[in-house]
Each structure stands twice: as structure tokens, then as C-alpha cells.
């Protein structure tokens, strides 16, 4: 790598995932369905999320003082089915005030913003957000304490998926959260861009998928300090479902753009084996870390 072969960290090196406490390669396919119970005939899902301050090695040798949900950037991907009751117990183990603000549809006092409902959750305190899983689709959660940009830029965001009643067709599913790191904390763009926490990870370790199998990407943009982001897949086209709130795709494309907070579902079947690049088609973001590979292998052709 390097030179005319494209952007890379020094020597093609990667970070110490074990020391960071999370690995983008496993985060990719990790969905947290919570603790499931039934109350009055209704499915209830319980989670405990902790706000933690944590130093994360965001590039080899570069330490970023992050604020996190459950110690990872992005936080865990919560998953429920439309109509479930979601109960998220939020414990603030950080030294800073935080909230959890969920997108979706819910009462005002569950909105997780200062001065509304419970408002700010101070260090050492906790609060349980309770709301219905609706509408189905792909949604964000993030801290909503001021200064908002800093709380998001430090890493306080994650995704929750509400599956439609009856679910979607079976697929190899993965979550891709697009974001960046402003390591100089000057609020002027970012020095590093990543998907699922660490730049260039899927360049060094391509994502293995099977030829012909349906692949579903839950794609989210929570990039702070830059207005838009995009996703481009090489050599293939995908069906795109904006926000995932309809079951019919809006577009058959190889590139989508998303503003901060936008998200959608991409569905692909790779017809050819081999390595196919994906990256932000804001090429600057790609060269600063937001690019990777799919490695399409022969296997269970459907």
C-alpha cells in the first residue's frame, strides 16, 4: 500500500482492538436484541447502556479521548421488532452530563433532551427510557447535551433497528456507521474518517460475503463537522431503502449520499467473486480512512 496504491496508515498498520475494547470487524455483524420478556402479551426488550469516558486508539499511535456508549464507537446496535416495548436503562458512568436521544416516535418526556422530561442525566445518575418500537426502519440514538457537536464528535452515537412485522427476507446483515474524528478539537472538519470506529479496518481485513447471497447493509451517517457523506460500491449496484421505513426500494444505484442523521438500507447480491472496494465517494474522506473491501467468495449460491 501507499504511494500510487492509495492511502494507508504507516506500514499498513492497524490499531490494538483488544486494548480499545471493541473490534469493528465483529461490531459489523453484532445486533443486540436485549433481554426479552413478555408483559401483558407484549414483547418487552431491556438493555443497559453505560456512558463511559475512554481513551481510544483511533489510528495507530493516535489516542482520542472519547465519550462512549458501552465503551465502543459507535455504541451497540439495538434491535427490536415493530410494536415491541423498548426499555433502555441509561447509566452515566462518565464524568460529564449526558442523555440518550432516540430517533423514532415517542412521547416528549422520553426524548432525551435537556429541560424536557428527566432532561440531563448527571454523572453517577441513571434513567430508563421507555418507548414503543416504531416506526419500523433504521434509526439513530445519540447524546443530546450541549455543546451538541462535541458530544457527538466525541463518539456518543449508535443505531437501533426496528424490524417490520414479519421481518425482512433472510440476508447476511451488517451495520455500517459512517463517522469521523476531529483529533485537534478545533471543530474544523476531521482528521480521520471511519466506518464502525476505526479507519481503513476493512482495507486490511476485507468483509467476507458470499457470491449470490443477499447482503443487507444498514447504512448510517452520523458524521460531525462535515455536512454530507456518501457511500459508493465498486462493480455492483444495490437497492436502496431510505430510512428503511418502506419495503419498496427507492433507487437501484451504486452511490448514495446522506446528510448527518440520514440513514438507509442497501441490499446487494454480488454476481462476481473477488475484491470490491467500497468507500465514501467524497474522495477526501476515503483517503482519510473511510474505505474498505468486500471479498466475495464462492459458497452457498442461492
Amino acid at each position: 500500500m501507499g504511494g500510487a496504491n492509495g492511502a494507508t496508515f504507516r506500514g499498513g498498520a492497524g490499531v490494538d482492538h483488544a486494548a480499545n475494547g471493541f473490534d469493528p470487524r465483529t461490531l459489523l455483524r453484532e445486533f443486540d436484541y436485549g433481554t426479552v420478556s413478555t408483559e401483558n402479551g407484549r414483547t418487552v426488550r431491556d438493555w443497559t447502556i453505560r456512558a463511559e469516558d475512554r481513551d481510544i486508539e483511533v489510528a495507530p499511535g493516535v489516542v482520542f479521548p472519547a465519550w462512549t456508549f458501552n465503551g465502543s464507537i459507535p455504541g451497540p446496535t439495538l434491535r427490536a421488532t415493530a410494536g415491541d416495548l423498548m426499555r433502555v436503562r441509561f447509566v452515566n458512568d462518565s464524568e460529564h452530563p449526558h442523555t440518550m436521544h432516540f430517533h423514532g416516535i415517542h412521547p416528549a418526556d422520553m426524548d432525551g433532551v435537556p429541560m424536557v422530561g428527566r432532561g440531563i442525566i448527571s454523572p453517577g445518575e441513571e434513567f430508563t427510557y421507555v418507548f414503543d418500537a416504531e416506526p419500523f426502519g433504521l434509526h439513530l440514538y445519540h447524546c443530546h447535551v450541549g455543546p451538541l457537536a462535541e458530544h457527538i464528535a466525541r463518539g456518543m452515537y449508535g443505531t437501533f433497528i426496528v424490524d417490520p412485522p414479519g421481518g425482512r427476507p433472510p440476508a447476511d446483515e451488517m451495520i455500517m456507521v459512517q463517522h469521523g474524528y476531529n483529533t485537534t478539537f478545533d471543530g474544523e472538519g476531521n482528521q480521520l474518517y471511519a466506518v464502525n470506529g476505526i479507519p481503513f479496518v476493512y482495507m486490511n481485513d476485507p468483509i467476507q460475503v458470499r457470491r449470490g447471497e443477499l447482503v443487507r447493509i444498514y447504512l448510517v451517517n452520523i458524521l460531525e463537522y462535515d455536512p454530507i457523506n456518501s457511500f459508493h460500491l465498486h462493480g455492483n449496484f444495490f437497492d436502496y431503502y431510505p430510512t428503511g421505513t418502506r419495503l419498496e426500494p427507492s433507487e437501484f444505484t451504486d452511490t448514495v449520499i446522506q446528510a448527518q442523521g440520514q440513514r438507509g438500507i442497501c441490499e446487494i447480491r454480488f454476481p462476481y467473486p473477488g475484491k470490491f472496494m467500497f468507500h465514501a465517494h467524497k474522495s477526501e474522506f476515503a483517503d482519510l480512512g473511510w474505505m474498505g473491501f468486500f471479498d466475495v467468495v464462492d459458497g452457498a449460491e442461492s
Partner: protein
Amino acid sequence: MSTTEESRDAEVPRNPDARVDAEGPKSRAGTRTGGSGRVPLWVLVVGLVAVLVAALGGLAAYGGQTLPERLGPPVEELAVERTVIAPGSIELVLRNTGPDPVAVAQVFVNDSYVDFTGADEPIGRLAADTLVLNYPWQDGQPYTVSMLTSTGLVIEHVVDAAVATPEPGFEFLGLMALVGTYVGVLPVLLGMLVLPILRRTSGRVVRVLLALTVGLLAYLALDALLEGLELAALSGGAFGGPVLVFLGAGLAFLALTTIDKVLAGRRPDERDAGSAGMRLAVMIAIGIGLHNLGEGLVIGSAYAVGELALGAALIVGFAAHNTTEGLAIVAPLTTRRPSLWSLVGLGLIAGAPAILGAVIGASVDNAGLSALLFGVGVGAIVQVIIQIVPGLRDRTSGRLLDPATLGGLGAGVVIMYLTGLLVAA
């Protein structure tokens, strides 16, 4: 209090005895100490040194701990001392000019991360290291190299226009020597050709020419000072930054004053105007030579980093600029008939340092060193100006500044400014 000091100062020149009185108590105190006799002087010295060492050692060991730990993030500073651009790579020689070690973790060039080697360990205070970046740069394009440190700080270095750095081989040094000759030696010798004309003119014309010389030199000094300060800013300040310029100036001034005194003292029997004129010419030549050293440095280092096109206009510009320097050297020689060889010698003293400067500038390219050398040029010129000024005095009227000499001064500054415009380096 100021009144007392003023009156004492005023007394000293008027009455030499006052000085003795003023020093009286001090000398008496000295006598008393020496007169006590019981404790030998060396014991006192050793005792004092012991006390100083103990006190400073105690301060180092305990005093430092009384200060709280420094708050905030580490202070990370890196200065790029040299940039070498080769096919497919950019090499940076870095120096840590801050108080804390700096670990260069990653590097991006024009917003693209690059593979690189070097600086595997944190760079300590004042230590240097070299990064070699693997980057396909294009000829003439600007590049911003961003070094991302372990704490997430970004230190930027801008390459205004990438051009392959010339190999500092024999051929290249020969080229620099040639350029130094073109812009340094030849113009100065050309300027000295006006000597026969000067001899036929009146003392008044000579005084105007000397004033013109002062104007030229003052402009050169200011120019060199500004250039030196600009370079000092690039050096990152670890070795003193702007202080280097003034240090160089001060040392050069003192050294040249010493040389002048030695030259004057050696020939007490030849204290005629001619000898003094020759001495002044030598001093002017040395001052101009040190200035041309700085000029050579600029040419050499600019060429080395690809920021200079060695076109005919540039050579002509520098030559025109420097021809006036030859005039300055021969201005004090109108009452004397120096040999051809001594004239050539003067020309070489003034012009040859441009060759040396060009070679140093092209091969060293160190902003701190260059700032110091510019300072040396400034100090040399100031010393020469001080030497020339008494010669401006009109012996009949006793006035230092009459309209003619003032006109000469102004003309000197304007000539330097206008010929300087020819040199768009």
C-alpha cells in the same frame, strides 16, 4: 533619583577627580578585604563556588517540586529544517523545538494518509529525525504535509511548489559557485571601475558618494534584518529564533570593531588619510562581503527547494543591485593609488562570500543557521556605517548633514530599493 544620577553623570567629564571620588568607597572596601589577610582569596572563591553549587543543587532537587505539575496537554512543536523532494517521495528533516517529546503517529499529504518511514520513536526536545513519505507528488504543485501526533495534534508543513531537490554533487556546487561569482564578485569589481572618475572629483562629491554608500548599506542592513527575522521564524525558535539574528549582529559588530582597532594599531606611522581610507575600504568590503554571504544563502537555499528560477533577469537584477556595492568600496580610496591587486583583493573580500553562501545555502538549508548568518551581515554593515559617518562631515563648515549628503543618503536608499525590485527571488 534620576536627578542625582544625571548630576553625577554630568560631573564625570567635567572634573576627572569626581570619578575617583565616586570609586573611592569601592576601592576602600577592596583594600579592607585584602587587608584582613587572614583568609586567602582562593579560599573565599572556593567557598563561594561551593555555596553556589549547593544552593543551585538544592533548588534543582527540591525547589522544582514546589511548582505544581503543568496543566493542560503537552506542548508539541516540530520545525521542518529541510525538505528533500525525490521521485515518488518527500523527505522532511524534523526538529522538536518544543518542551515535550513529540511522537509522529501518522502523516497525511493533501488530505490523504501516506506510508512513511522514520521517527519510530518520539522525538525528544531539540532532537532531530527524518521522515520519508511515499507520495506521488507532481511537478510544481503545492503540498500540505500534516503530521498527526500521538495526542491527535496536527502539525502542518507547506511545500509551496514541489520540484525535485537537486543532488548536492560536484556539478551542483560548481553551478552555485558560478552563480555566486555572477551575482557577487563580478558586479562588485564592475562597480569599482568608477574609481578613476572619483579621483578627479572634489571632496564634496566624495562626501556625497560616501553618504550614498551609507544609504545603500542602511538599506542592505534593514533588508538583511527582515530576511533574517523571517528565516528565524521558520526555524521554530528552539535555538533562539529572532535572538539568533541579533546575536549574530552583535558578535559580528564586536569582531569587526576589534579587527578595525588591530588594523589601526599596527600602523601608527602611516596615519595619513590614504591609509585610513584603505582601512575603511577593507572594512566596507568585509561588511558587504558578510552581507553577500547572506544573499548567497538565500539564492542557494531557494534553488535547493526549487523556489528559484535561475533566469537571466535574476542574474542581471542581482548584478545591478550589487554593482553599487563596488562603488561603496572605492569611495574612501579617492586620495590614494591602490595597486590593481589590492583592488581585486577588495572585490573578492566583498564578492566571494556570495559563492560560499550559495554553496552553504544549497547544501545545508537550515533556517536557524541562516538566520544567524544574516545577523552577522547586519552587524557587519552597522559597524561599517559607524566607520563611514565621520567621513561625511564637511571639514570647512563642520556640519555632518548638509543637503548634499542628505541627498546622497536618500539616493542610496532609493537605488537599493529600485535595483532590489529587479530581483524577484
